């Protein structure tokens, strides 16, 4: 009897020791997924094909910057291995691709993924699995806080955005009009969804007591290619100031149509998702008068600020790592500088995420940004976040178009801070 009792005790003892040893051993070497002694694996989904493929220069610039960083020693001795997948802007494709990144590629973080809908389709999944979904390429307000029905009740601590949000930008235009053009009659073209409506709401907030200056607001559906009716309506209502919260295609069409129907507003405010220089040049080439265009920017211009160190650096990285981006870069494609700016922010956060980076460390680093050193953003912009503020960029520079068909954006006034 006594012997029989002793044997299990011995077995239990040995097992306990073994268990402790195993736990200790694995505990000593276990990194967060995607982090090895030599690499950090990250990934992102982008529309490389399809309707939104104009944005594909963003991941190309990001890959180029990571290649440059890797050749200069990487981050804390680790190279960044960036997997770019094509979701064609279709959320049903984004979901399995993100699952592939998480469970098969085993990435440390999903970085820079583009689009509001793809982001919303995957943020529950990524947050549930504690996978950072950071520096998303979309200006919706979701990434900074939850204000709408779509994310009610759920918290997404592993999600972060990068660029200024749309309502803040709309507010800036409103304030500008109220202060500088108190007699202007404002006509707004906006996309009939959260994107356009958030912009419009921001404009109203910015106008404040001058809200009644909006004489007409016309909406269009996201897939409509013609906005002629809306432009005619704005003209008929006597608007003399045009505000466009529309995607690139519709913005270009609107500018061209306005000129064709003989509507010549004294100012044309263009939301910065559509104010990339190459879009304006396209509008001008199709006959639009763009001399009164006003917009905002938060990245350095690769066409007009060529003497900035960040633009020079971007140029040399493109020459060495992504020569295919050269043409877009020289024409001032803001998406290229955008990609560089995002990639720089990620590298900065990764450096501060611990000697052996952890996911929690990365999020902590992204929630404690406070730097003016990103060379690719507009000079003077400070990337700043806190535990309660998840919007890294809250500054915008107002810019006005100058030079007609071959012109460019020129800064107007000082950098605006605290736009939210």
């Amino acid at each position, binding site marked *: 009897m006594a012997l029989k009792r002793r044997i299990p005790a011995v077995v239990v003892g040995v097992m306990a020791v073994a268990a402790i040893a195993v736990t200790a051993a694995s505990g000593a070497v276990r990194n967060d997924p995607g982090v090895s002694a030599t690499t950090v694996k990250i990934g992102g989904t982008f529309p490389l094909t399809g309707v939104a493929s104009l944005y594909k220069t963003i991941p190309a610039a990001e890959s180029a910057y990571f290649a440059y960083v890797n050749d200069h020693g990487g981050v804390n001795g680790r190279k960044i291995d960036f997997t770019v997948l094509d979701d064609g802007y*279709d*959320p*049903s494709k984004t979901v399995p691709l993100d*699952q592939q990144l998480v469970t098969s590629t085993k990435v440390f973080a999903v970085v820079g993924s583009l689009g*509001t809908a793809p982001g919303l389709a995957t943020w*529950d999944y990524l947050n549930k699995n504690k996978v950072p979904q950071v520096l998303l390429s979309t200006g919706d307000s979701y990434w900074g806080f939850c204000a709408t029905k779509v994310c009610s009740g759920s918290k997404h601590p592993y999600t972060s955005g990068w660029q200024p949000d749309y309502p803040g930008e709309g507010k800036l235009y409103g304030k500008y009009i109220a202060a500088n053009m108190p007699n202007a009659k404002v006509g707004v073209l906006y*996309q009939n*969804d*959260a994107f356009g409506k958030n912009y419009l709401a921001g404009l109203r907030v910015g106008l404040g007591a001058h809200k009644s200056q909006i004489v007409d607001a016309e909406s269009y559906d*996201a897939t409509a290619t013609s906005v002629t009716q809306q432009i005619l309506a704005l003209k008929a209502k006597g608007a003399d100031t045009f505000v466009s919260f529309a995607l690139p295609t519709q913005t270009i069409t609107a500018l061209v149509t306005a000129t064709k129907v003989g509507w010549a507003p004294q100012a044309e405010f263009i939301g910065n998702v559509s104010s990339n220089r190459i879009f304006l040049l396209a509008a001008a080439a199709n006959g639009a008068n763009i001399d009164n265009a006003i917009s905002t920017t938060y990245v350095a211009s690769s066409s007009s600020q060529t003497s900035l160190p960040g633009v020079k650096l971007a140029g040399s990285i493109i020459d060495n790592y992504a020569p295919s981006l050269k043409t877009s870069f020289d024409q001032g494609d803001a998406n290229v500088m955008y990609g560089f700016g995002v990639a720089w922010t990620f590298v900065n956060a990764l450096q501060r995420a611990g000697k052996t980076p952890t996911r929690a460390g990365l999020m902590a680093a992204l929630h404690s940004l406070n730097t003016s050193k990103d060379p690719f953003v507009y000079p003077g912009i400070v990337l700043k976040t806190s535990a309660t503020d998840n919007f890294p960029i809250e500054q915008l520079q107002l810019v006005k178009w100058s030079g007609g068909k071959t012109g460019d954006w020129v800064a107007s006034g000082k950098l605006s801070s605290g736009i939210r």
Partner: protein
Amino acid sequence: MTRGLATRLGAIAVVAGLVVLLGATMTDYHRGLGAHVAIYFIAILGLNILIGYTGQISIGHGAFMAIGGYTTALMSNYHHTNLIATLPLAAAISFVCGIAVGIPALRLSGVYLALATFALAVSVPQLPLKWSKWTGGSNGIRTHTTPTNTWIYTVSWICAGLAFVAAWLLLRGRAGRAFRSIRDSELAAASSGVSLPIYKTLAFGVSAAFAGVAGALFVLVTNGYAQPNEFGVTLSLEILIGAAVAGLGSLYGTIAGALFVGLVPQISTSVPLIGTGHGQDVVFGFIVILIMLALPNGVAGLLGRLDSRFKSAIKSHSAAS
């Protein structure tokens, strides 16, 4: 029991066994892919009833998937309906929409019907943008809970099994005979007393109901998130390609068609060089052309050929002995 039936039941048992076995052993990510295969299976099955058995072409089945998908998303979001309970509802609403489309389609045939259904594929996914107040517009709408990949894998394959049995029962009986007679000759069918309006619209309705269930599951596997971009024209074309690969007019190739459209685009992303951007499309297109050249009647045609060769081999063998 005839030898043919025994082989078929055996094949079905093998596939079912594989589904269960894989479901139990695969990684979570692969269960998600497996669910995609089941969803395409259901949609292709439905399209095959329409095109393969009744001879009515549709290149707009993504529209019915959108209707089913939004049914599930809206019911779940607004009324917290049990996700399983939304599936028959999605089938019913899609069925009604299918009938509604089938009636005007009676006057169209061939390329005209193809164009009309194509218009459907283009226009229906835009409706949520029109009524964005209820449907979330381009920001989409989500179900009140998000199913796990294990849940969606299990439910999708059970639905696929039920859909297969339903299709088999439907096609082996009176309705199936009527469908086939319409496909082979509308004139002969009508003169034998088959009501063209009834059976053509019925085929549209049933086919749409299958697509509706597939669409509902498609939303669930997309983390319960419905958004217009998910139901673009390419989805309709994928189902059509799946049906062509499977082989029209036979149910047994369906699994091959579903595996093809469910897995090839996903797998080719991890192929080096061609794995990004247009590379995937090139791979996909190349394989489609290859299959169409080598197997003009799809995988079902191949199975048929193998079967007849096997039979003649047995015949000559028994003749020799």
